[in-house]
């Protein structure tokens, strides 16, 4: 049987196993292992599989994953989220839909120290939802703004999404992280605009809060989150100016938050164990998917499918933007069923060579894919942030899905803007130290 047929059969079996509920990392490794065995020999597949797992668990640059995850965990334990929300509320409450916009602001702030969208949504959901409920905010607007705001955790650096993309495509993780900063800010702004339009259209969705806040009070409130500001500049400034690698920046950020949590007397033994357990859970889940992806990528390389697909698409007389649009639609559809990391792992081995062949900037495409993964976090039926907020707010998932729907529009707007003006994503990384 020729390698192409074996490769296509492998892809079909992979999707079958995924539909049957086999863990994604295992399904990738299983198909990859038997595919390599079929095309070469089992004596080649065995060491390939062991080396994939061994390499994943012993590559120094991968230490950035648990370090970024524990940063977010420690930020949650330290109670910084409450302070972030209070600051955002003081600065933004007088805008139409002020508390929902404050939620977006707080999510952006928390995302600046936490790489996980789920952690951002869950943490801010617990703080913001009761407040919005107190002021009779429409449940769709309240839950939608938290679930959508949570997605910023995946885009605003430090972001696990960029780390995984960088690992899979061998791009500079530092550059990717820096590239996410402006689009992240732009997305937060677009979310805020969506809220303003929502409230202008339906004023009852967000009762106006007439309580004035003095400018002095606003400025003083920033003192409550000085740790956040320090840790953000330490981590992102360090990477941007080339003082630290992302791994070192992650370690320093986590260490700083560890000390902050200690000084705030929030670091109980129970909280520390919970933070470490959650870090293990999230990191190992990513590692297993990555290890499986390495076995599968090896198999795909043997079939030559990714290379030939990219060459074939490159030779077609179609506009490269048309092919990009098709890829984005595929991402949007896959996002409805797959977790963001899994989606990257499954698609990048095939799609990335095509993107490079078509002449797109790999760092720019990293931003675009992470934006599309964000959309996947709030699209039915398997949007992870929806599950989280539905649980926190104790409302049916349909309510949250309906609430997040307008925010999807914001993601598409930012994708279009970043596509038309790639410099939005690239100018910071192009001039970084």
């Amino acid at each position: 049987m020729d390698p192409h047929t074996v490769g296509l059969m492998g892809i079909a079996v992979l999707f079958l196993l995924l539909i049957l509920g086999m863990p994604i990392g295992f399904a990738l490794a299983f198909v990859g292992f038997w595919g390599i065995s079929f095309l070469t020999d089992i004596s080649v597949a065995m060491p390939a599989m062991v080396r994939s797992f061994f390499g994943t668990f012993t590559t120094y640059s991968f230490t950035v994953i648990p370090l970024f995850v524990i940063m977010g965990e420690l930020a949650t334990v330290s109670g910084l989220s409450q302070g972030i929300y209070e600051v955002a509320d003081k600065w933004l409450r007088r805008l139409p839909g002020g508390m929902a916009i404050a939620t977006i602001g707080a999510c952006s702030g928390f995302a600046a120290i936490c790489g996980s969208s789920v952690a951002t949504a869950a943490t801010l959901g617990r703080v913001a939802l009761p407040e919005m409920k107190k002021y009779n905010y429409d449940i769709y607007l309240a839950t939608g703004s938290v679930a959508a705001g949570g997605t910023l955790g995946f885009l605003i650096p430090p972001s696990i999404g960029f780390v995984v993309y960088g690992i899979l495509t061998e791009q500079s993780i530092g550059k990717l992280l820096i590239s996410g900063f402006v689009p992240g800010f732009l997305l937060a702004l677009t979310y805020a605009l969506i809220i303003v339009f929502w409230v202008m259209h339906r004023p009852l969705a967000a009762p106006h809060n007439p309580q004035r806040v003095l400018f002095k009070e606003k400025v003083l409130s920033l003192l409550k989150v000085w740790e956040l500001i320090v840790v953000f500049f330490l981590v992102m400034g360090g990477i941007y100016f080339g003082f630290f690698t992302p791994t070192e920046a992650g370690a320093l950020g986590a260490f700083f938050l560890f000390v902050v949590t200690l000084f705030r007397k929030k670091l109980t033994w129970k909280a520390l164990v919970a933070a470490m357990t959650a870090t293990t859970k999230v990191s190992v889940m990513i590692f297993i998917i990555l290890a499986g992806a390495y076995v599968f990528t090896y198999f795909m390389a043997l079939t030559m499918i990714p290379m030939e697909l990219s060459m074939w698409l490159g030779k077609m007389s179609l506009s490269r933007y048309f092919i990009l649009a098709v890829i984005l639609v595929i991402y949007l559809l896959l996002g409805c069923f797959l977790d963001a990391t899994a989606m990257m792992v499954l698609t990048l081995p095939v799609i990335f060579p095509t993107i490079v062949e078509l002449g797109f900037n790999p760092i720019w495409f990293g931003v675009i894919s992470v934006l599309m993964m964000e959309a996947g976090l709030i699209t039915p039926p398997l949007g992870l942030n929806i599950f989280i907020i539905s649980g926190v707010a104790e409302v049916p998932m349909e309510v949250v899905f309906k609430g997040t729907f307008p925010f999807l529009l914001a993601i598409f707007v930012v994708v279009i803007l970043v596509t038309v003006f790639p410099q939005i994503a690239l100018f910071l990384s192009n001039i970084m130290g």
Partner: protein
Amino acid sequence: MSILMLVPTDARLDLFLAGCKKRTRQLNAWALAVGMGWVLVMMCLTTLDVAGRYFFSRPVPGAIEMSQFMLAVFGILGMAYTHGIGANVRVTLFTGRLPRRPGLWIKAVTDLLSLQMVSMLAWYAGIMAVEEFTGGTTTDTLAIPIYPLYVLLAVGAFLLALEILTDFMICLVGAARGSRGQIFNDAVKG
């Protein structure tokens, strides 16, 4: 189907399976306890390394190699726990809508396939540990032998295989007998 009819129907089998699950959970919890703290050590070591480099022009020698070892202990010993609590991402769109028994059958099949892959990983990691031991491969800076990492991978994969085997047995028995105990409910949820 006839072989499955031989599965005992007495409550002792449920107890046995519950006991297996309890033991594997204990093993996983111990492995997790040994592994998870290394993330904090990695954090401190890297911070020390950076501080040493910038303030004293003396980075910690071999910090990268030590971090690699710590990452391995942290990650590999967490594999079984992560799987045991159902944190390995899977698509439940189809299986989540299935009736209970077909759901258990399908879970048993995917567990069996996973078990094959993970068992081979454990076995061959053991073989490679022996090869690395015989070859005397060490790290570049600190000259630490590499083979313990392969041993660790074999142990981590073995624990993971035990966890999957237990789940497989539970799903198989649950599917064959239509049992409704808590462990069967947990198993079908994955």
